[in-house]
């Protein structure tokens, strides 16, 4: 069940990314995907495997669900969030985009606990919330740095 839920979620978020109008260039989107992937992978490893604050399932199918969440859903959702964020005209809309994206991640995190992918040891949902909010501002920061320091020229054919 967990595998199916997270596979479908991954498919859904990738599909949403595919169909939304892109405000970021391919290069910028790639930067966001790669940097947030690195953070997501390292963070989960340190929290789960090194500090053992969260126990991850040893069931192979459920573990595959965890991998989809960590390596596909989180970075893709952050790309979606950033494309919508940059298209938002007001601060309130930008805030709502970030809030909606954080809520999506929290709902998936709760699902991963309900479906026995992860079990909290010395951890709680508040820490996850702080981490997800940080991740969103990190992605915005990365995007602004890329915009500031690069001069991307698009080919016109």
């Amino acid at each position, binding site marked *: 069940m967990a595998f199916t839920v997270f596979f479908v979620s991954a498919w859904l978020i990738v599909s949403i990314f595919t169909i939304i109008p892109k405000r970021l260039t*391919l290069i910028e989107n790639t930067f966001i995907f790669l940097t947030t992937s690195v953070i997501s992978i390292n963070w989960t490893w340190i929290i789960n495997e090194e500090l053992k604050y969260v126990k991850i399932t040893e069931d192979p199918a459920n573990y595959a669900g965890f991998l989809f969440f960590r390596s596909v859903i989180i970075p893709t959702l952050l790309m979606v969030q950033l494309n919508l964020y940059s298209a938002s005209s007001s601060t309130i809309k930008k805030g709502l985009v970030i809030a909606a994206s954080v809520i999506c991640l929290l709902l998936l995190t709760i699902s991963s606990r309900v479906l026995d992918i992860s079990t909290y040891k010395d951890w709680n949902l508040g820490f996850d919330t702080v981490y997800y909010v940080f991740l969103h501002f990190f992605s915005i920061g990365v995007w602004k740095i890329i915009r500031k*320091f690069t001069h*991307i020229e698009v080919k016109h054919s």
Partner: protein
Amino acid sequence: MNFLWQNFDKNEISILILMTIAYALFFVLPFKFKREITWLLMLLGFTIGVFFDFTIGGGLIDFFTLNDTNHYELFDFCYYLIFAPFSYFFIYFYDMFNIHKKTFIFYILLWVIVGVSMQWVFTKLGIVEFQNGYKIPFSFAVFLTTQTFTALYFELIRSRFQVLK
């Protein structure tokens, strides 16, 4: 728990030497790509290294141990940093030799052999230690996937953006 290293010996010294060689070559070669493309290629190589190592080299699958232990150490991070210039050189020479449809497969295969050979060297240096039934021929699948993806991604980028300085 030591986040720096378990024992500072052959594998750590080898990583330092390999990093020095790779990054020295990176700075010696004339920069041909725009700054953001260079960053992108470096980040791509680094992320692919992290992605594969944390997916098949750790967790439930755990096909290999890096630098003496399964714990995350400073030199694990340094090991992933070697993948960054590796990815850059792959595309640097791809562009330099003007690889096209007829030479694409040969170029990928050549780099796959380089990649797998390097991994074999890493096992001899004690940087990587295979376990749980993993054998080095399996790495052909990994490198074929990553090198093909990197080349196709570069083709996509080159078709849309000015990549050269």
